[in-house]
């Protein structure tokens, strides 16, 4: 059976929209060094490196992990790349988990990031569309998500543009307390959100995420090594990486069946029966505000079609709410695509470790990190807990509430 795995180190590159001071390799190396130092390890301790980035059209180098090998400690080590679009960071964190849990390696370094500011991101994203089928009409990610949003609003008529504005405001307010968020808008308000220009109806400009140069890295250790490590840890309890198709007939873009399946599996594995009660903090990959409504419903946090009222209007997902979502400000406040999904995992780990500083959720015992990628078809979930055995974290919470 698989070994227990803990995240013991985290690194995130210096917060800045454009990192003109470094090339791709150096950016990745920066995060890598930070994570190793954070874990209290040396480069020699690392026995495997998974080094990833989003579609290579962004950085303009094919197999960019090869270029970055030296800087990411891959020389004379096992070192390779995962590529799953927007969720690549999470897929990479999960690959790291498999590397350790399988018994193959003990101290695995995972890195994921990108330099998005060196070329046109939307042009690169339009290349997701098949040249034979849709590329001529492609308008990057916004148009795809806009269609998804329309589809959702059609089946959940209580969801209005005002809800998107609420979500966008909530996220940017959270970001003010996250030193790693790149988009800082202290003047953000729902009015401001509503008055923004259209991006791709029904999405307005601030319903979308920024683009930046960033990399994130983590160190995952086996139980044996993690136990010897005095640093705070986050124990990984369950992982899932599910793909649904892109062109299959009767696909409902507003119902992410892959996410629902991933959630079903992870909840079963961890004994989570009522996510709203059982989970303390969630980081979802919210490239667009509307995705809060869609992902949170798929994660089983509300009744079908009722995310707007039960989660947003109710304030349940606010920092002072029942189940804070994206205390970091989410992808809406910091997006390098390559690093974004791993940052979701890193942020949850930080919450569990009690290291989230000003955006710490009190008593975060159990957290869930989510990522999506591709033609909105790859979904990943990682659930972590403070205690090595998740049941002990359930106990801790019971005691606190009781």
């Amino acid at each position, binding site marked *: 059976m698989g070994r227990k795995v803990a995240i013991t180190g985290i690194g995130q590159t210096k917060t800045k929209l454009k990192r003109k*001071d470094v*090339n791709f390799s150096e950016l990745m*190396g920066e995060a890598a060094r930070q994570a190793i130092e954070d874990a209290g390890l040396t480069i020699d301790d690392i026995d495997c490196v998974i080094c990833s980035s989003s579609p290579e059209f962004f950085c303009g180098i094919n197999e960019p992990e090869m270029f970055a090998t*030296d800087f990411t400690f891959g020389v*004379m080590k096992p070192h390779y790349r995962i590529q799953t679009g927007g969720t690549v960071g999470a897929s990479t964190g999960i690959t790291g988990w498999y590397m350790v849990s399988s018994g193959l390696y003990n101290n695995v370094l995972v890195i994921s990031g990108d330099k998005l500011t*060196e070329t046109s991101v939307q*042009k690169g994203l339009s290349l997701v569309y098949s040249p*034979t089928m849709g590329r001529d009409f492609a308008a990057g990610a916004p148009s795809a998500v806009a269609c998804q949003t329309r589809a959702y609003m059609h089946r959940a008529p209580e969801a209005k543009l005002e809800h998107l504005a609420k979500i966008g405001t909530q996220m940017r307010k959270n970001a003010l307390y996250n030193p790693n968020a790149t988009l800082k808008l202290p003047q953000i308000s729902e009015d401001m959100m509503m008055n923004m220009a259209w991006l791709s109806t029904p999405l307005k400009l601030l319903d979308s995420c920024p683009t930046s140069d960033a990399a994130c890295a983590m160190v995952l250790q086996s139980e044996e090594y993690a136990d010897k490590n005095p640093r705070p840890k986050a124990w990984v309890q369950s992982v899932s990486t599910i793909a649904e198709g892109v062109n299959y007939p009767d696909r409902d873009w507003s119902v992410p069946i892959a996410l629902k399946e991933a959630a079903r599996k992870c909840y079963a594995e961890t004994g989570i029966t009522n996510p709203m009660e059982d989970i303390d903090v969630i980081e979802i990959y919210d490239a667009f505000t509307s995705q809060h409504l869609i992902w949170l419903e798929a994660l089983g946090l509300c009744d079908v079609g009722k995310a707007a009222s039960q989660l947003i209007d109710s304030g349940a997902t606010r920092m002072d709410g029942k189940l804070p979502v994206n205390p970091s400000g989410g992808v809406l406040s910091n997006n390098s695509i390559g690093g974004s999904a791993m940052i979701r995992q890193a942020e949850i780990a930080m919450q569990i470790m009690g290291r989230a500083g000003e955006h710490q959720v009190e008593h975060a015992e159990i957290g869930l990190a989510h990522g999506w990628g591709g033609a909105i078809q790859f979904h990943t979930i990682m659930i972590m807990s403070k205690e090595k055995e998740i049941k002990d974290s359930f106990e801790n919470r019971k005691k606190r509430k009781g």
Partner: protein
Amino acid sequence: MEDVKILNGEIVLDYKWSPGQTIGKFLTNLKDGKELSAVRCSVTSKVFLPPQGWSPYANKKMTKFERIVGSPTLKTGTIVYEAPWNKPEGVEVPYMLAALSFVGADTELLHIVVASEEKLLALKPGDKLKPVWKEERIGTIRDIDHFVPENL
């Protein structure tokens, strides 16, 4: 009536790559000083040309720049007959991609040698070469346009 079996297309993307401090300095020195820069690893004392900011085997930052002077000798070279996708600008096949040894550097610089096929065929490891610089340099490795056999 022919079936459509091929869809022709291309992908054109423009980039503004950041070279970073080390590669940036190498390119700047080429442009401004017609100078080749290498970097020395403080752990192994190995001198890397062209330079990068991280020592691959010692796993340490490399910041000590060294100026490389003198003409290189040929370590080895390949005469390129079939133009690669990224054929060097302004050069026609056959030309040579060469590994060039410089005194003071422990790694060879990969660059091109342009000469007649006859002269390229006559080149042997150890032969001296000299750089031909571009009149207008912009900070790319092709600021040295190419190398030629010294005994041309």
